[in-house]
């Protein structure tokens, strides 16, 4: 209901018929070298974009904020980014956000707070007052963990977060400079297998279960100019996600193309959930928690930034 009429007309059209009338057919999308952006690659691999009449070129960037200038000056059409960053940018007016399609949600065991085998940390309670790494401060890792800690009767304010880049997590952890490591896949699998690390807490559990992490976004401006392309894009991503639910191999096959995960690891890691439909309710949670953490200056109505799911 919140959507413009233009979107609704597109929405009612059958996928195959929408080939004609697209505002443009060549898209450049910034993605991250992480499992989360797999749906885009599966959609390319399985020719789902082709079916929609789109030709999508992925542009791997090293972090999401880096892509925002590219989005703003038109070097790319859309990007894959985490909601916390995107909402923050939207809130500060750096970007008029438009969510094209949901991407990934945290699956159980795809994120994990872990301790080394000989660490005194055994339970969630032991985390109190400890130092934990995050990839970027004030991001979804902290947001989710805060909720889970609260649910476990741990005061989240006592946790000391330090920003540690990916590559330096292991040396810092081994060197005792962080007490517990906040890991994502494939590090969770690797740390369990090679170091015997113990899982203390799943940050994607309880109140933060199926926590939405990242999605495909563009600017409102771009969306207004390309409503049909947006719908087609959304359909292809959702179709890919649907396919991935039942077909692990389809994912494992594309991972080595854009991540540093080899085929063997790809077969064992825990995947996040790939969203096959858009759901403003679960996404609203992220915005609300950010507001609660005072990371936003005002509430965001997430639904206004999204389109209803148009695929099957």
């Amino acid at each position, binding site marked *: 209901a919140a959507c413009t009429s233009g979107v609704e007309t597109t929405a009612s059209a059958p996928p195959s018929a929408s080939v004609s009338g697209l505002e443009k057919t060549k898209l450049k999308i910034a993605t991250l070298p992480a499992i989360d952006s797999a749906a885009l690659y599966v959609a390319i691999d399985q020719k789902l974009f082709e079916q929609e009449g789109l030709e999508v070129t992925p542009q791997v960037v090293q972090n999401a904020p880096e892509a925002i200038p590219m989005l703003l000056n038109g070097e790319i059409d859309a990007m894959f980014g985490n909601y916390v*960053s995107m909402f923050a940018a939207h809130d500060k007016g*750096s970007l008029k956000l438009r969510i094209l399609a949901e991407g990934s949600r945290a699956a159980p065991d795809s994120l994990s707070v872990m301790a080394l085998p000989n660490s005194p940390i055994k339970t969630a309670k032991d985390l109190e007052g400890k130092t934990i790494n995050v990839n970027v401060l004030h991001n979804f890792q902290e947001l989710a963990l805060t909720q889970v800690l609260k649910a476990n009767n741990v005061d989240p304010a006592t946790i000391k977060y330090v920003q*540690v*880049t990916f*590559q*330096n997590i292991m040396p*810092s952890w081994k060197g005792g*400079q962080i007490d517990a490591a906040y890991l994502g896949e494939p590090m969770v699998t690797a740390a369990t297998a090679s170091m015997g690390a113990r899982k203390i807490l799943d940050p994607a559990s309880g109140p933060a279960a199926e926590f939405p992490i990242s999605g495909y976004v563009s600017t409102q401006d771009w969306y207004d100019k390309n409503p049909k392309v947006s719908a087609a894009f959304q359909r292809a991503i959702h179709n890919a996600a649907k396919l991935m639910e039942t077909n692990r191999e389809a994912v494992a096959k594309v991972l080595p193309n854009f991540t540093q995960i080899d085929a063997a690891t790809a077969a064992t890691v825990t995947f996040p959930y790939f969203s096959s439909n858009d759901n403003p309710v679960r996404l609203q949670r992220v915005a609300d928690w950010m507001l609660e953490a005072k990371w936003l200056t005002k509430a965001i109505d997430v639904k206004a930034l999204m389109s209803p799911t148009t695929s099957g």
Partner: protein
Amino acid sequence: MRTAVFRTVVLVVLVLVWEAVTRLAGSPFFPPPSTIVARMHAMWFSGPYVLTDAAVGNILPSLGRMALGFAGGALAGVVLGLALGLSARAYDYLDGVLQFLRAIPPPALVTVFLVLFGFGLRMQLAFIMFSIVWPVLLNTADGARSVEPLHLQTSRVFRLSRGERIFRVVLPSALPKMFAGLRLALSLSLIVMVFSELLPGTTNGIGFQLTDAYATFDLPAMWAGIVLLGVLGYLLNELFLVVERRVLAWHHAAQELVS
């Protein structure tokens, strides 16, 4: 006096142009200077004794890191530069390795630094020193190598000791070039200080605030950091020039013969 006026005029005009252009452009990425200054005031200079807690907790540690790193790096640069400039042996043994290290981008070595020095201040200082030592080293070596031959011969004839030759002849003649290196290193140390505050485990500092501001898209805060760095750079440079004018008084006076 005339230059002071001129300088102020240039500065004021540029700031006004900046304000006008950013207001016209209206891009959130380029807030006008008035917004930035207001933000700086709110962040750092509105405390009970001018400075806020955030200023005390971030600016001071940053300056401390910078000062220590600069001092250490400058000293290492002067010592190594003299060694390389004066001794063919030291040059042969060390030059290759130093040129190798000089080309290495410090960000690529963070893990190695982390393993060798651990989290925190030690690693940050190592990082700053490693980055700023080069301009001092190369310019000192150049200076030490281009001492007027007749000065060296004079000191040899009068049998000055090694220490006297270094401190009373080589060092003073290398000083003008060394100062060029030190001046480069000074602003570099501000830059590298910012980088060092992105390193694993940092929890305060101007650089930390600056990157955190960008990560949360608080662009006025990011610009506040940039402007603060610029102002600090300017002030430190003025201080540096005062020292330089004193130390190199003979050099400047001798130069003013012409014009």
